[in-house]
Structures are given as C-alpha cells and as structure tokens.
C-alpha cells in the first residue's frame, strides 16, 4: 500500500517533469497533465476507501542532529484530504484543457499544476515534518509561478511576489515551530510528536504550536497574513479555484488537524487561533460584501470560510473543521470554476460588467447557485452540514469562557454577512439587466472540458453533507439558516429597489473601508514594505561610504602618507644627511634609555 501512496505523490511529479521537458505539443502536455492526476485521484481514493493506515519509511537522513525520515504516513485524515486534493486537481486539469488550451504557455502551466498536486500530496501524506515542509514550500512556489502565469502584466507579477513572500514569512515561523516540536519530541516524525507531546513542557508546546500557527496563517490566509489571497486572484481562474480556494489554503487547516492532539494540549495557542479566526471570518466577510471583482468576492469568502474552520479547530473540534474543509473545497472550487466560466464569457472580472447571465448560461447558473447555497449554508447543500458542525462546536465551546462566547457571536454574525455577500454576488451576476459587453464573440457556456468538471463538482458540493452521517444540531442549524436568510433578505430588498445599482451602497460610508479590506495592505506597506526598502537603500549607501569607504580610505591614507614621505625625498643630499643624523640621534637616545 505504501507504494500506492508513493505513486500517488510521484506520478504528478513525473507528469510535471514530462510536461516541462517533453515535446512541445499541447496534446502531449494535456495528456501528461490529466492522466497522472486521474491516476493519483484513483490511488488516493483507494487509500481512503481502504481506511487502513499506511506508513513506510524510505530512508533516514542523518543531519548530525535529529534525523529526517523520508517516509509517508497515510492516516484517515490524510487519505480524505488527499482525495480532496487529487479530485480538485483532476477537475482543474481537465477544466484547464478547455480554459487554457489556446494559451501559449499551457505546457508550463499544466506542469506547475501537476507539481503542485504532487507537493500537496506530499504535505498530506508526509510522515515527517521536514518532509511536510518540503512539500509545503513547493506548494508556495507553484502558487507563485501560477499566480504570475500572465507575467506580462506587472500587477500579476507583483501579486505573485506578494503571495510568496507573505506565505514565506509565515513559513519561517512554521520551520521554527517544527524545530521546537521536533527537539521537544526528539524526532521530526509526526507520529513521534503526537505520541510524545505529554513529555514536552507547556511552554514548549505553546511556543511550538504558535510558531506553526504562523505558517498556518500564511498558507491558509488567516489574519494577519491573509493579504496575499485577494491579490492572488490575478492568476488564471482555475488556479484560484484549485490552489487558492480548495487545496493549498486548506493545507494550513490540515496541518493543525493533523497535529491536533498537540494543539489541543496548548490552550493558549487555541485561544490565539480563535481570535485570529474571529477577526478573519467577520473582516473578510465584510470585505467580500463590498468587492466588485467577482473573484475577489470569492477570495474574501475563502478567507472567511477558512476562518470558520480555524474557529472550529480553536473550539477543539477537528472533525468539524475537516468536514468543512472538504465541503468548502468542493463548493469553493465549484464557485471558482463557475466564476471562470462567467469570466470566460464576459471577459471581465467585474460584476458591474455582468448581469442577467442566467438565461445565457443556464448550466453555470444552476451549478453556481448550488455553490452559493453551500456557501451560505442553506440546506440541503453540503455547506449547511459542515458549517453547522463548526458552529455547533463553537457554540459548545462558548460555554467555556467569555472569549469563546465572543468568537461564537462573531461566527454567527459572519453567517449573516455571508448570506448577504453571497446573495449580492448571485444577484449581480445572474439577474438584473444584461450588461453590454463589447467582446461577445463567445457564445454558449464554454467548451465541454470546462463544463464537465463544474457539473461533476456540483454533485459533492450539493451532496457531500450526507456523506457524514451526523444529524444537524437543531438549534444552531435553525439559527444559522435564519441569520443567513436574514442577510440575504436585506440584500435582496435593497437590490429590488434598483436592479442596476450595487446593493453594497447599503453600507454607506463604510463601503470604501470594506472594499479596501480595512486598509490592511496600506498599513503593511507603511509599516513593513517601505521601511525595508528604505533600509535597503541605507545599507547600500552605508556599504559604499562606510564599509567600503574604510577600505578605500585606508588606500587613500597610504597614498597620502606616501606623498608626505616623497616630500622629504627632494634630492638635496644635505636633507638626507640631516634626516640620517636626526634619526640616528633618536636611536642612540633609545638605545641609551633601553640600556
């Protein structure tokens, strides 16, 4: 079985290599992208169905300190997440064949997705934290490469750099967290860490998990490291669907769940996680309410939904978090792919350029409606069940303290806002008067390779909730559906009054701050980016004037002294003799003193 896991990881990698180095034909690239993804999906499913824990170590790498064990360890959680990752990846690969096939750089694009799939699987299946970190970072790289896929546009390039750097900032902490836990447990093996955490001091646990949390926040776009995600929407839509909605961002949640016993032993960390989640879910939801760019709406909603998962984790319910992770993966991928279809059709990201599309794109309309329903948590869509589980967990935790109560309240408020922004996006896209688009040479909904994945994804988005046979918690269920509908109702009411204008006008003076996501970017730019640039310029100046200046100065000093000495060499023999005698006198005096 371990071979199966290894193959699942390796095949997409080989696919990436084959795609990059293979013949220059789109057909080859497409095959080499889709087939490994499909096989991996099958293998991942096999592992998940087998339900047996699979683990194996290829080799131990002696580092001189704790060894690194190169191995895989497929737990139940890993297997499930693996299925999610591979299925979404397969969907995206197939979808991309249609979406990107006329793209000049399809080869590298699909290869990077394959590489990403491989890295994600490595993260999911890794038995060792360092190995996990390897995959973790490679995912970051792929994300960078894919966001910057249309690098001709400087904005994309900037977004890619930003995404990489912000996540890397978290990753530095993540790596240090690995060190702390690894040394605490005397091993980097996840298993050892989970079994040995009682031996660690509370301080070690808290510090280690907090540091890991930094990485989680970076990857899963949690406050305060969330700012890269909305910008990352600059990448091709399938990428937004795959990486920035369904899988990569889920990696952070996955890691916390994977190490959950350790996190559970560090209450301080969970409180911090809860606070981050509370801040993130409401803030992002509010920001989503004011965006005009459809993909940015979805991006902020991703942040918000991930925060809900984090909230569930903070409430010590890892299952609820993973449940929501899975359903979210499905419905958010669906939403993005639908958004991709829409954008493909109208050639703009902005909702002000859409409207009335339900007639033109009925399939998209239907599937996206499912997606939005799941997002809002309306029964019977999958999101209803998972969100309910998460909310119930948080409600349960709320009994334990004031802070937790506040978190729970925030979560409920978020549900209402979610209802509002989802409805706004739904209405602005598919209803109202059709916007006139200059570029209307696309007819129909799009190529089959794009439609099929959407339809396929709609099924789990709708039905995945029933897979987990836990009945909804009645109280929270009713409350959340009611809140969601309340939010939706308010937006609908405003929209009804004027079907052309944006219901976000309801926000009044708050609209701009919301749209700018509370100016976090600006603050970061002032606080960090600009000082670093100033510092860099200062360093260059210092290097030239002080550090190198000292070097050059010593050269000049030597030259100057040389000039002084040359002055004495004026050719007059009597000057020479005078110097000689004066020097001799000094030496004689010296000798006499010494003698």
């Amino acid at each position, binding site marked *: 079985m371990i071979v199966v896991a290894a193959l699942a990881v390796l095949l997409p990698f080989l696919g990436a290599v084959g795609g990059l180095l293979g013949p220059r034909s789109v057909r080859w690239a497409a095959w080499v992208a889709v087939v490994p993804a499909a096989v991996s999906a099958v293998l991942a499913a096999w592992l998940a169905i087998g339900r047996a824990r699979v683990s194996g170590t290829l080799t131990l790498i002696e580092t001189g300190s704790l060894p690194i064990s190169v191995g895989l360890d497929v737990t139940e959680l890993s297997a499930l997440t693996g299925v999610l990752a591979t299925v979404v990846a397969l969907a995206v690969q197939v979808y991309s064949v249609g979406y990107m096939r006329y793209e000049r750089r399809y080869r590298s694009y699909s290869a990077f997705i394959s590489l990403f799939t491989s890295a994600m699987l490595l993260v999911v299946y890794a038995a060792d934290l360092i190995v996990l970190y390897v995959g973790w970072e490679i995912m970051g790289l792929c994300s960078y490469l894919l966001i910057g896929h249309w690098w001709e546009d400087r904005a994309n390039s900037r977004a890619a750099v930003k995404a990489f750097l912000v996540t890397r900032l978290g990753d530095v902490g993540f790596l240090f967290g690995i060190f702390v836990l690894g040394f605490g447990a005397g091993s980097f093996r996840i298993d050892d860490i989970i079994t040995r955490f009682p031996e660690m001091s509370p301080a070690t646990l808290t510090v280690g998990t907090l540091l890991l949390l930094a990485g989680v926040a970076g990857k899963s776009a949690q406050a305060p490291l969330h700012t890269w995600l909305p910008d990352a929407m600059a990448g091709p839509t399938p990428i937004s669907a795959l990486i920035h909605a369904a899988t990569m961002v889920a990696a952070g949640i996955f890691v916390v769940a994977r190490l959950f016993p350790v996190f559970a032993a560090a209450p301080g960390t969970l409180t911090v996680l809860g606070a981050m989640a509370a801040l993130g879910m409401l803030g992002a939801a509010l920001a989503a309410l004011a965006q005009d760019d459809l993909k940015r709406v979805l991006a902020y909603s991703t942040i918000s939904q991930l925060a809900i998962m984090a909230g569930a984790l903070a409430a010590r319910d890892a299952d609820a978090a993973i449940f929501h992770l899975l359903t979210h993966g499905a419905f958010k991928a669906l939403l993005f792919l639908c958004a991709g279809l829409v954008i493909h059709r109208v050639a703009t990201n902005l909702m002000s350029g859409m409207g009335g599309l339900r007639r033109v794109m009925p399939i998209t309309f239907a599937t996206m409606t499912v997606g939005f329903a799941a997002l809002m948590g309306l029964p019977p869509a999958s999101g209803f069940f998972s969100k309910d589980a998460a909310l119930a967990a948080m409600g349960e935790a709320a009994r334990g303290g004031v802070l937790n109560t506040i978190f729970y309240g925030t979560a409920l408020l978020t549900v209402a806002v979610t209802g509002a922004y989802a409805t706004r996006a739904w209405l602005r896209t598919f209803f109202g008067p059709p916007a006139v688009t200059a570029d209307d040479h696309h007819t129909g909904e799009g190529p089959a390779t794009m439609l099929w994945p959407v339809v396929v994804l709609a099924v789990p988005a709708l039905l995945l909730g029933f897979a987990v046979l836990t009945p909804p918690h009645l109280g929270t269920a009713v409350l959340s559906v009611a809140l969601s509908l309340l939010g939706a109702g308010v937006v609908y009411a405003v929209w009804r009054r004027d079907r052309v204008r944006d219901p976000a006008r309801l926000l009044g003076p708050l609209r701009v701050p919301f749209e700018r996501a509370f100016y976090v970017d600006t603050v970061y730019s002032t606080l960090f980016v600009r000082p670093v640039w100033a510092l860099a310029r200062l360093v260059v100046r210092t290097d030239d004037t002080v550090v190198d200046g000292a070097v050059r100065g010593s050269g000049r000093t*030597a*030259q100057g*002294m*040389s*000039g002084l*000495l*040359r002055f*004495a*060499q004026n*050719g007059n*023999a009597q*000057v*020479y*003799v005078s*110097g*000689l*005698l*004066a*020097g*001799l006198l000094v*030496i*004689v005096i*010296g*000798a*006499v003193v*010494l*003698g």
Partner: protein
Amino acid sequence: MTSVIQSIDYFAIAPPLALALTACVVLLLDAFLPRGPRVRGTLGLVTLAGVLAALALLVAQAVRGQTLATFCVPAPVACSYVVDHITLIFAGLALVAGVVVILLSMEELAGGEIPVGEWYFLLLCTLVGAITLPASRDLVMLVVALELVSLPVFVLTALRRYDGRASEAAVKLFLVSVVSTAIMLFGVSLMYGVSGTLHLAGLQQGLVGNPLAQTAVPSAALVLIIAGFAFKVAAVPFHSWAADVYEGASLPVAALLSVISKAAGFAGLILVLVVAQPLTSGIWVPLVAVIAALTMTVGNLLAMRQAHAVRLLAWSSVAQSGYILAPLGAGPDGAGAAVVYLVFYAAMNLGAFAVVMLVSRADSRLGGGTLQDYRGLIFRSPAAALALAFFLVCLAGLPPGLAGLFAKVAVFRELVDGGVAWLAIVMAINTVVGLYYYATWTAALFSPAPSGAPELPRARSAQVAVGVAIAVVATVVFSVSPQLVFDVGSLSALG
C-alpha cells in the same frame, strides 16, 4: 712579551686573493692591450673567470667543511679572518651575484663610453670587500672591508663621466656613505675605548671589567657602529639616498648596490649583533624591530606611487631590507631567517634588475624607463615579460613565486615564534602595500601597449639574457626546493 707574528693560512684567504689578483691582471691587460670591442669582451671574460675561480675556491673551502681561521693573536686567542658557515654563505652569495653583475656590465660597457679596465677593476675590488667582510672578526678588518665595498662603488657610479646624473648620484652616495662611515668609525673608537679590544670575539669579555661599560657608552657605541651597516642596507633613517643613486647609476651598479653591497651590510650587522653580541640582545632587539618596521613601511610607501621602474625597485629593495631585518627584531635567533630571506631576495632582485636592463637596453631612450614603457612587454618580448613577472611576483611573495612566499613565511615564522606580534602585523600590512605596486607593474606587462606608441625593438642581449637565466634558474630552484636555502641558512649552522 709573546710573539705576535702571525702565520697566514693562504687557503683561507684564497678567494679574496684570487679576486685581487684578477683585479690587477685586468688593470694590466687594460693598460697593455689595444682598445676595442674585442678587448672589452676579453676583459669581461677574464673578470668572469676570476670570479668563477674565487667561487671554485670557496666551494673547495665549503667542501672541506671545517672552519678556517687566520690572522690570529694569542692569549686570548682571537682571529681576524675566519672562514666558517656564515662567511661561506655571504661570500658565495656575493660571488654568484657578482657573476650576474659582470654579465650585466658586459652589456653596459658594450657602448664603449665607459673605461672598461677601471670598471672591472673596481668591480673586483668591491667583490673582494664583499667576501672579506663576512670573514672579518675584528673591527679593523670590518671597517676596511666595508670601505673596500663602498669606495669602488662611488667611482663605479661616477664612471659614466659624460652623464651629470651619474656624477650627482655619486656625490649623494659618497656624501651619505662617508658620513655614515665616520659615524661608524666614531662608534668603533668608543667601543674600543670601553672594551679595550678590537676583536669581535673579545668584545663581550672586554666589556665586563671596564668601568665605562656600566654607562650608556657601549649602547651608544653599538648603535653608531651599526650605522655604517645600516647605511649599506638602506635601513631607515639611512635610506634616503637609495632611489636617487639607483636612478642615477648605471643598472649593473644599482644591481650591485641592491644585492652585493646590501648583503655585505647584513653580514656586518649579523657579525656585530649576533656573532659578537657585545651587549645583551634586550638592548638592540627592540631597536632593530622598530627600525625594521619603519624601513619596510617607508620603503613600501615610497614605492607605492613610483612611476619610474628603477626608483620603484630602489624603494622596494628598501622595503625588502626591512623584511630581512625583521627576524633580527625577534631576537638573535632570527639571524637564520634573515639569511634565508637575503638569499631568496638576492636571486629575485638580481633577476628583476637584469630584466630591467634587458628592456632598457632594447630601447636606449629609456633610462630604465617608466612603468608605462613596460606596457605590452608580453607582446614584444614574451620571455622577458614572463621572467620579470615571475620576479615581481616572487618579490611580492605570492605563488607561483614560491621562493618569495617561503622567504616571507620564514620571516613570519620567526616573528610569531619570537612573540613579536606587532611587528608581524606591521609586516603583514606591508606585504599588502608591497603587492600593490608589484601587481600594478606586473599588470602593465600584460596589458596592451597604448595605441600609437612607437614599435619598440625587441630586447636582445646575450649576456644579459644569461644573467636573467641564471636568476630565473636560481629562483625556480629555490621555489621548488627551498630546502637548499633553509639548509645553508639554518640557525644551527650559524652558531
């Protein structure tokens, strides 16, 4: 009163005797043979033969391997002329260097403006002095030998009678030299006064009973004696004459001054300070250290901005004197390292002078030339350029010039071992400064000549080429197998 009639060991004094005889022969031949280019060559060859004969005698002495002493007085036994290890090294060095200088002279004299007989005669006289000096074991002998080294050089410098610069150089050399000699003699007289003897062997003993020995007089006397030798090695503050004289004198004379005369100076220093050791080393070692530091620093700084090749070599040889002095600044045991460095230095420096001679001969407009004139030498005469580059790199002390590197390592080793860290650091910095000008010059050899520069004739001179070859071979041998030098200069042999 015991007899003071001395028996003479002629084998011991055979080398200087051979040289002196050759000198007379040369003078006679010059007087009786007709003038002409062929005679010039003949005289050169005779001189060369004489030097080689002396060298052969020296080798014979070395092979025999025992210390020869002559001109001795009884009770307490003290000899004025001793042929021991140190004598052999310095004399051998002077003679081999003499061969190269004679080869350079042959080229210099080819022009016919300089009287040949006198030239060779004076050259041989200098060599007599240079090989007598390391054998001297009393102050009279030392003074006379030193004068024998100096006086002919004044004349050699001035022999280019038509050249005002040569005369000027001679005046400067003469003036500084005679003042130094006078100072030295004054020191000798004082030393005689406080020790009651002129024999080096008796100095230490003589000082013990003398009431004046408790005063500062012996220290002062020692410093004054050193002055004469310090002038020879161009140590600070006796350095000022060096560049002017090197520039004004003809190149063979400059080479002679920088190697033979300098070696004689060091021989004297080592004899007075280390072999005789009239005073405890605590008095003179710090002084020598300070002088060494000053000498290398001043020499290097002055060389740094030099555009004139010979002046640069002059100041660089001042700096090199500082390096040679440095191990003596670590203690008497440093003499071995000083000798080792001197031997390496002689080969490298003579080589450099020989190539400069070769290049300046190729274009008589250049009196040694500025560094600019060396640009693109690699294209004009690759062999000369490579040789010069090799010597310069050696002088700088970097591989592939391993000879220079090992020489410096030997000195550094002595300094570190002797615990004179400050001097080691000063020398380290000086090495870097030194590299600056050596590297600049070397780089000039390999960079293309400025466009529009006249096509310079290729360097061609058989004798000088042989001289260069000797230096190259010596330096390469020293590089590959430096142990040869370490063997001769090893400390145990000095005792």
